[in-house]
């Protein structure tokens, strides 16, 4: 990873990219640019990584200042921007074994996060509906998002957004459920936007899906920990490295607690 140039981190960096001229996608790119905050971008571009506090928080230094950064929000925005900028140009994370959407939907419906109650009807019926619904969208999902669903209704591929990063798969069931419930499938621009946001949330570094033995590199828990990089390594050397070159942070990150200045060296001298 260290040897790669930063601009080659995303899988879309291949010699022959597909040129996207869809008005909807171009408009979403313009919106990202319009809300970008140049000072924050410079800070992320030139930061020195200090360390992870938790999966959600990390410390970074820039010039004379120390910052507390919300890795969850920053990574979510990073993946959203990659999904919009590299639209239809992703590599594929191919699952070694197909994951039946029905089983994933059932796992999600069994989770309290889904909000399922008996009034909603049998979970099996809802799961079957989700499978059939997503199968109808399979061609578009594969073509634009490298989200591959086979004819049997199983997930076989996910988009490769940045090299050496695999999303925490514990979030997969809820992601599948939310694809059916939270995406606006009726309007093109809103569809790409909401779908990208759901995908970005799934890929983000979230504390509920990252535990001490997580890797964020696709390793299963039965692999000896010594053979896989721990999640902290991935956050520092993959995610924060990508922040340097691939993230244009929105202005509100400086106001909503996503980026917090903890200390400034000249002020500490006074103390």
């Amino acid at each position, binding site marked *: 990873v260290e040897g790669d140039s930063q601009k080659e981190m995303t*899988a879309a960096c*291949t*010699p*022959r990219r*597909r040129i996207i001229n869809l008005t909807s996608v171009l408009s979403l790119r313009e919106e990202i640019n319009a809300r970008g905050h140049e000072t924050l971008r410079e800070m992320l571009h030139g930061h020195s990584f200090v360390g992870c506090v938790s999966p959600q928080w990390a410390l970074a230094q820039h010039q004379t200042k120390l910052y507390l950064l919300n890795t969850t929000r920053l990574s979510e925005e990073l993946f959203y921007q990659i999904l919009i900028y590299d639209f239809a140009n*992703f*590599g*594929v*994370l*191919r*699952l*070694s*074994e*197909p*994951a*039946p959407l029905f*089983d994933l939907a059932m*796992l999600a*419906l069994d*989770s*309290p*996060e*889904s*909000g*399922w*109650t008996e009034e*909603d009807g049998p979970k099996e019926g*809802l799961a079957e*509906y*989700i499978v059939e619904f997503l199968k109808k969208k399979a061609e578009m999902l594969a073509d634009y998002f*490298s989200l591959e669903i086979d004819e049997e209704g199983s997930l076989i591929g996910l988009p*490769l957004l940045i090299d050496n990063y*695999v999303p925490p*798969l*514990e979030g*997969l*069931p809820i992601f599948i*459920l*939310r694809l*059916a*419930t*939270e995406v606006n499938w009726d309007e093109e621009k809103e569809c790409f936007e909401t779908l990208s946001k759901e995908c970005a949330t799934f890929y983000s570094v*979230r*504390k*509920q*899906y990252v535990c001490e033995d997580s890797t964020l590199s*696709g*390793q*299963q*828990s*039965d*692999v000896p920990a010594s053979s896989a990089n721990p999640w902290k390594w991935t956050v520092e050397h993959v995610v924060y490295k990508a922040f340097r070159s691939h993230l244009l942070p929105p202005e509100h990150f400086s106001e909503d607690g996503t980026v917090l200045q903890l200390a400034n060296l000249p002020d500490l001298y006074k103390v």
Partner: protein
Amino acid sequence: NQNVKIVQIPFSMENFKKNFEKHKFDLEQKDEFCLIHNL
């Protein structure tokens, strides 16, 4: 597209289900709205 990069990741639905059942969700992070009603 011949230039598409493909990376295989190990996955077993059987193991995934076992791990998922063990997984404890952080209730503080839950979304408050009900997803099912949007189906």
